[in-house]
């Protein structure tokens, strides 16, 4: 017997039954989970900002998308970074300043700054939902020290379940990676002392649009 069949057989033997019939299997496939969600009574945008900031993330608000490049430029100047970034193709329509060097490719080891559009924001925990793809490559989320994320307030949902609904609605299906990001990278592995910038970005800055 091949390992797959052996394991499934072992499972069924343990459960003291044979294979489930089609009716039962269809019923399981049609099952709709109903789990308790932690109550929220806050404005989702305010909650998102509060929670994200509580984890050393930073947030600024701009009126519209057109203001994003200037905000990013101001950010990089504050940190004395060069005018260079890996930018998700989902933001290529923006008018970047002429002196800027932009590319939409994967982030290389020398990359210092990336700018990505978020697919959604989750107010429950103050988290960003990033979907892998040319619009926001995964390496942009993890390689550079500084990660700037553009999030439209209209994309902020209350719960994880709402975010999954957004994923399911995508015509292209699930992305290779869905990253739920709740702040800069951190570790407490040395004497339980929290240190930011373990492997992922040291700083995550959200530009909230709208």
């Amino acid at each position, binding site marked *: 017997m091949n390992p797959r069949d052996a394991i499934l057989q072992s499972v069924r033997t343990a459960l003291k039954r044979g294979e489930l019939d089609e009716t*039962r299997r269809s019923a399981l496939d049609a099952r709709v989970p109903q789990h308790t969600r932690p109550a929220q009574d806050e404005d989702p945008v305010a909650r998102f900002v509060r929670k994200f900031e509580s984890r050393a993330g930073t947030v600024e608000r701009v009126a519209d998308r057109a203001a994003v490049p200037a905000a990013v430029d101001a950010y990089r100047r504050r940190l004395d970074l060069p005018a260079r970034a890996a930018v998700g193709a989902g933001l290529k329509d923006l008018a970047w300043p002429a002196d800027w060097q932009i590319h939409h490719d994967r982030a290389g080891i020398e990359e210092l700054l990336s700018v990505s559009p978020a697919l959604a924001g989750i107010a429950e925990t103050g988290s960003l939902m990033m979907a892998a793809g040319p619009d926001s490559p995964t390496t942009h989320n993890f390689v550079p020290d500084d990660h700037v994320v553009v999030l439209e307030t209209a994309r902020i949902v209350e719960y994880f379940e709402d975010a*999954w609904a957004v994923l399911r609605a995508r015509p292209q299906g699930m992305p290779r990676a869905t990253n739920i990001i709740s702040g800069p*990278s951190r570790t407490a592995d*040395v*004497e339980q002392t929290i240190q930011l910038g373990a492997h992922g970005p040291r700083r995550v800055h959200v530009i909230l649009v709208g």
Partner: protein
Amino acid sequence: MEIRSKEFKERAVFAIHDASLQQALGKAGYGFVGKRALQVAELPEFEQLREEAKNLKDHILDHLDHYLERYEQAVVAAGGRVHWARDAEEARRIILDICQRVNAKTVTKGKSMVSEEIDLNEALIEHGMEVVETDLGEYIIQLAHEPPSHIIAPAVHKTKDQVSDLFEKAHGGPRKTEVPELVDEARRVLRDKYFRADVGITGGNFLVAETGSSVIVTNEGNGDLTQTLARVHIVTSGIERVVPTLDDATLFLRLLARSATGQETETYTTISTGPRRADDVDGPEEYHVVLVDNGRSKMLAGRFRDMLRCIRCGACMNHCPVYGAVGGHAYGWVYPGPMGSVLTPLIKGLDVAYDLPNACTLNGRCQSVCPVKIPLPELLRELRHLQHQQQLSPALQRRGLKAWRYFATRPKLYHAAEQVAVRVLSALARNGRIRRLPLAGAWTDARDLPAPAGRTFLELWQGKRGQP
């Protein structure tokens, strides 16, 4: 990892006298316990979630074959491959084959307890590959050539000084002494490995049948760099980790970080679904999932089934006073603390891990914090029952139990013996206590024995009241 659970007693004693370990355990213990308590206080629905999580796990286990098949279908539909491994050896061979096929030289690893369970690293190294643990705690113990001492914080037993020593020796360069510098150095060294890796191996907190995804949670982002930059992504996971849908995974996610580290959420929750798509500019070209049985389907059949609910949060060991006294290494294998004391005998043998279920007061604190309500003390007692039935317990103990049963089921004899004992002990006592008692050194080495009152209660009662 060589199992050294037979050395539990000796290692426990040393651990108690190891000052730097005690210092590290004290810090960690209070951190995890206190932070979890705060999270629980802030979430009114916490108990409700625990009950739902237990029920959901039971539902999954009742239909494990169905969900595993659905999961496999979805992985394949997303362009991935699923491999099934009956035991550790089979799992190692599968992973070795994949790595050798792609001529892997460097393999990076996110944290995966299953990969330790199957002794993966040694097998890859034996075949000439460089294996790099990227979780900072795992990296530290890899440098130290030690096993993890905690399933969430593997280097919890190490002090900052010890980490400085390890890094200085492994990386060269000037010795770093402060935490930010140490973490920076690790970041720099590991970044290079990520970009050179041919294969990235991660674990799977959850496997989602709906989408064919594996879910990992980290604070560091190491699992993400591991899987995204390598050409091949391999997920190693126990078969019991499958959940029906993303919404179901969410229920567990709401409990996991709170229970493990006392955070509302870990920094990164990553849902990986298949290899890179045609239009992706990054991501692995191959996505493999190795489903590991290694005794789990057998566990499903018996009185230890509830152990399969475990989501590997570590809350049990954080709250266990025995773990708190001796740390993780005393347990001698991959899984320490209460959950390790159930799993190790079941996977490796009741004899090899004899002490683990017995070095427990059955105080129940573990069960009270388990997010999926595993009745750990009951399971530990069941293991003792099996050990008793298989006569693995010391002969002295079995004789003692026989004698106790003999007397206790014969009240007149029992009371007569008790009356003698009480009089003898009272005679030996000075100022109400006995400082030294032959054959009772295990008690009197560390404690005085409070003296009895010269008569038993039942004797005195008879005297006072005439009859019951």
